Structure formats: structure tokens, C-alpha cells
């Protein structure tokens, strides 16, 4: 009986040591607010004016991302919080394109698409003269091409371009856009 008790306590001690070792990896959630802009203004993009479309995201500004930057093992997911208005009289399908190169400029949504840029979010219908808000969980159903963008997300710096279909007749007012990246870190 005494021997079993000794084995029990030794096993328990071993478990505690293993437990401590296992805790060096974990999943963290990083958020980056993209809109409204630094002046508190909504972002407006349209087929007529695409000059303000580039939204640069720098996850390295987040202290948690900066801390774990060199220890990222996997980008688990990306989600969004979005509040966007379609003021036109016809509905639009909202998209967010992710472009790794932050130095590029596109004069129109069509040129963006022609550059073979890929959307990270697509398929969100915004009815005419309506504001749509989607939260973190709901946004997951619109996320696409995540596997292709994992390396870019891991670097932490990229550009997002909001656009919509039809390309030749859209106007979107983005009151709020937050990028939510879930990643696993470890030594």
C-alpha cells in the first residue's frame, strides 16, 4: 500500500512537470481596427472613387502579436467585425480583397480584380439603402482563401481593399471594420 502511495505521488509530480512543459504553447486572438480611420471617419469606396480603398493593416502594432511574432506556429483563422452601408438603390455583394504588397495602388475595383488579387471575404449581400453589421462568428461563413493567405497573415502587414459587385455601380460606406486573427504560438 505504501509503495502504491509513493508511486501515486511520484506520478502526480511527473504530471505537474509535464503540465508546466505543455503550457508553453497557446492560442491567442489579435484584433486590429481598420475603420473608422484615425480621424474617426467612415471609409467610403465606390466605382467612381476608389482612391481611399486601400486599408493598411499592421498587426505588429498589437503588443501581443509583436510579442509572439517569431513564435507563430499556425494561423488558425481570420474573422471580421463589419458595419457597412449600401446607400444605392440596388443591392451589392460586398468583398474584401487582401493584397500582401502594401505599396500598390489601384484606381478602380476592376483594376484590383484584374491584378489577380484574391478576396479574403466574399458573398455578403448588402440590400439597397441598408446598413449591415456582421460580428465575429457570423463573418466566418464569408471568409475564403484563408490557406493561401496564412503566410501573409503571419508576417502581420498587408492591405485590405473593400469592393463590391456589380463593379460598375457600387458605393459602400464602412462605418466599422475590425480584423480578428486567431493564431497558435509556441516555442
Amino acid at each position, binding site marked *: 500500500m505504501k509503495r502504491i502511495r509513493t508511486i501515486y505521488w511520484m506520478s502526480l509530480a511527473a504530471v505537474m512537470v509535464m503540465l508546466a512543459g505543455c503550457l508553453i504553447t497557446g492560442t491567442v486572438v489579435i484584433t486590429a481596427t481598420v475603420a473608422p480611420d484615425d480621424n474617426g471617419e467612415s471609409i467610403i469606396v465606390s466605382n467612381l472613387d476608389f482612391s481611399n480603398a486601400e486599408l493598411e493593416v499592421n498587426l505588429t502594432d498589437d503588443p501581443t502579436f509583436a510579442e509572439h511574432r517569431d513564435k507563430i*506556429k499556425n494561423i488558425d483563422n481570420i474573422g471580421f467585425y463589419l458595419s457597412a452601408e449600401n446607400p444605392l438603390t440596388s443591392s451589392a455583394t460586398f468583398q474584401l480583397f487582401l493584397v500582401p504588397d502594401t505599396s500598390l495602388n489601384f484606381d478602380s475595383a476592376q483594376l484590383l480584380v484584374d491584378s489577380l488579387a484574391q478576396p479574403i471575404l466574399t458573398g455578403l449581400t448588402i440590400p439597397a439603402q441598408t446598413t449591415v453589421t456582421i460580428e465575429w462568428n457570423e463573418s466566418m461563413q464569408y471568409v475564403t482563401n484563408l490557406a493561401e493567405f496564412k503566410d501573409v497573415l503571419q508576417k502581420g502587414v498587408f492591405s485590405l481593399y473593400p469592393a463590391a459587385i456589380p463593379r460598375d455601380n457600387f458605393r459602400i460606406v464602412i462605418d466599422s471594420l475590425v480584423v480578428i486573427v486567431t493564431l497558435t504560438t509556441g516555442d
Partner: protein
Amino acid sequence: MKRSLSWMVLLVFLVPLSVAAGPVGFGISGGVLVPIAQEDQAAGSVFGVKIRAKLFGPLTMEPNLHFGSFGNAEITGVGSRDGSSIKHYGIDILLGAPVSKIGIKPYVFIGGGVYNTKRDGDETTNRSGWSFGPGFSLGVRPEIDIDLKGRFNIAGSDGSTSKKSVGITAGVIYYVGR
């Protein structure tokens, strides 16, 4: 896929019983499932069934099947995200939990198995994993144990990483046979 999973669960339960000696206990349990270092999950619940039988010496085996779900993670200003649901089946080897005996029976265990994880927006994964922890059984009658168990789960995940959680469950085991 579902059919092969059912067969594997059946094998996990039946094969060990063929080498079991003495009484065999059938148990149910329920409790809390707490994510460890996972900001995208919150505490949820877990339920399970298991079979406990003597292996040899001070060792006891416990084939088990658990159904768990994490709670929704909440971040102020962006909303919440549904927690994952987890189905886990495997075998535990226990040290110090004699079957069908009256008294307080502390034990430690180590186990291996398969973790099936699902969540909207994530790929469903079937990964191997392992678990360990302490527990104690209170034998109130030769055929009845009240069981309290802490299980530290380490389930394989993408990118050579793992997802960890702790399950704390209470349950009852009923022994049949001599």
C-alpha cells in the same frame, strides 16, 4: 466516415474487455471542460461513458468516450465566436483504482485516443492526442464507485501544435461480475 468511426469506438471498448480479469464497471460522468491557453474558447461542458476493468497488478484500464463542447468566446466590440465541439474516444491506464472495492481509492492515469473537433468556419479535424491526470474513486458498495476525475487533454492540431484543455468530471461506476 461515420461508420468507420463507429467501428473504431466499438473496438476501443470491446477489445480491452477481452483481456479484462474480474468484475467490469460501466460508468457515466459529466462535468466542466475548461480550455487552457485558448483565447478563442470559453469553458463548457463534457459528458462521457466508460468501462473500468482490472488489467494486471495495480493497473486498471478504462476505455472511454466523451462528448464535450466549449463555451462561446467573447471579445468586447467584435462579438463572440462559437466554441468547438469535441468528441474523444480512447483508453486510459489507471494506477491505484482497484475495481469493485469499498473505500477511498486515489489514482493517476495516462490515456491515448482520438480527438474529433468541429466548429463552424473551421475544418473538422480527427487527430490523435493523449491525456493524463489524477482522480479518486469512492467505493460506497462493492458494486458502486463514485468517481471524481481531472483530465488534462492534449489534442493534436494544425502546424505541429496542440490544443489543451482540462475536464473535471464526476460520475458513477456500476460493477457487474465477480
